C-alpha cells in the first residue's frame, strides 16, 4: 500500500475528484492548506490565481530608506503563502503510477503553482467498522 499526497490548485479539485471516481478510487481526504514552493509564493495580481483571497496578499517590505518607501507603493502585492487543497489517499501498490499520472494530467497547466505529489509507504491499514486489515481495508 502507498499513500498519495497531492497538493493541488483549489479550482482543480472537482475535476480531480471526477477523474479519481472514473478510475474506481473515489475514497480520499481533502484538506485546505497554505503552501509555497521554491518560488516563495507568488505575485497577487497576475493570472496565476484570479480568485486569490485578499487576506493572502501582503505588501512588499523593503529596507526603509526614503526612496524605497516610495517604491513600496508601486510594487505589486505578493502572497507569501497560497491557498491549496491537499488530497490524501491510500491505494494498492500497482495502482500508484496510474493514479499519479491521471492526477498530473488533470492538474497540469504549465504555470508555476501546479503542485506536488508525494508517494509514501504505508505499513498497515484498518477499517474501523469491521476491523479488516491491509488490502481488504482499502478495497
Amino acid at each position, binding site marked *: 500500500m502507498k499513500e498519495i499526497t497531492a497538493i493541488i490548485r483549489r479550482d482543480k479539485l472537482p475535476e480531480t475528484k471526477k477523474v479519481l471516481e472514473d478510475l474506481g478510487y473515489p475514497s480520499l481526504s481533502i484538506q485546505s492548506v497554505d503552501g509555497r514552493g521554491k518560488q516563495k509564493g507568488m505575485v497577487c495580481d497576475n493570472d496565476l490565481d484570479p480568485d486569490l483571497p485578499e487576506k493572502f496578499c501582503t505588501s512588499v517590505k523593503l529596507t526603509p530608506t526614503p526612496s524605497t518607501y516610495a517604491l513600496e507603493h508601486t510594487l505589486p502585492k505578493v502572497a507569501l503563502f497560497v491557498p491549496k487543497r491537499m488530497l490524501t489517499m491510500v491505494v494498492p501498490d500497482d495502482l500508484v503510477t496510474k493514479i499519479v499520472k491521471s492526477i498530473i494530467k488533470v492538474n497540469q*497547466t504549465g504555470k508555476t503553482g501546479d503542485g*506536488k505529489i*508525494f508517494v509514501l509507504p504505508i505499513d498497515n491499514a484498518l477499517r474501523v467498522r469491521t476491523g479488516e486489515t491491509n488490502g481488504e481495508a482499502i478495497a
Partner: protein
Amino acid sequence: MKMIRAFIRPEKEQEVVQALEGAGFPSLTKMPVFGRGKQKGLQVGPVHYDELPKTLVMMVINDTDVEKVVGLIMDRSRTGFVGDGKIFVSPVETAYTVRTGEAVL
C-alpha cells in the same frame, strides 16, 4: 527523500518559516491543527484546555538535509515550556512536480 511534519506553536510559525527560507528551504505547506500531548492539554486556573491550536508545517526534503532542517525548526520553535510541539520524519518514495510531470523534488 523524507517528509518532515512539525507541530509548532502558531506564534512561532513566521520565525520558523523565515529561518528555513534563509537556509534555502522555502518550500513548505502549513495547516492549522488542534491537538494535545502527554500533558493532556493545558490547565490555566480553573479552566482546562483539552486541545490546543498548533500549526502543522509539512515539507519534503532530501535525506542529506534532514538534520539541518530539524535542527533549525527545533532551534526556532523552542521556548522551553510544555507545548513546544513535536517533529516527525517519515520516508517518501517519490515526489512528482505536477507542472513538469517529472519525478523530481
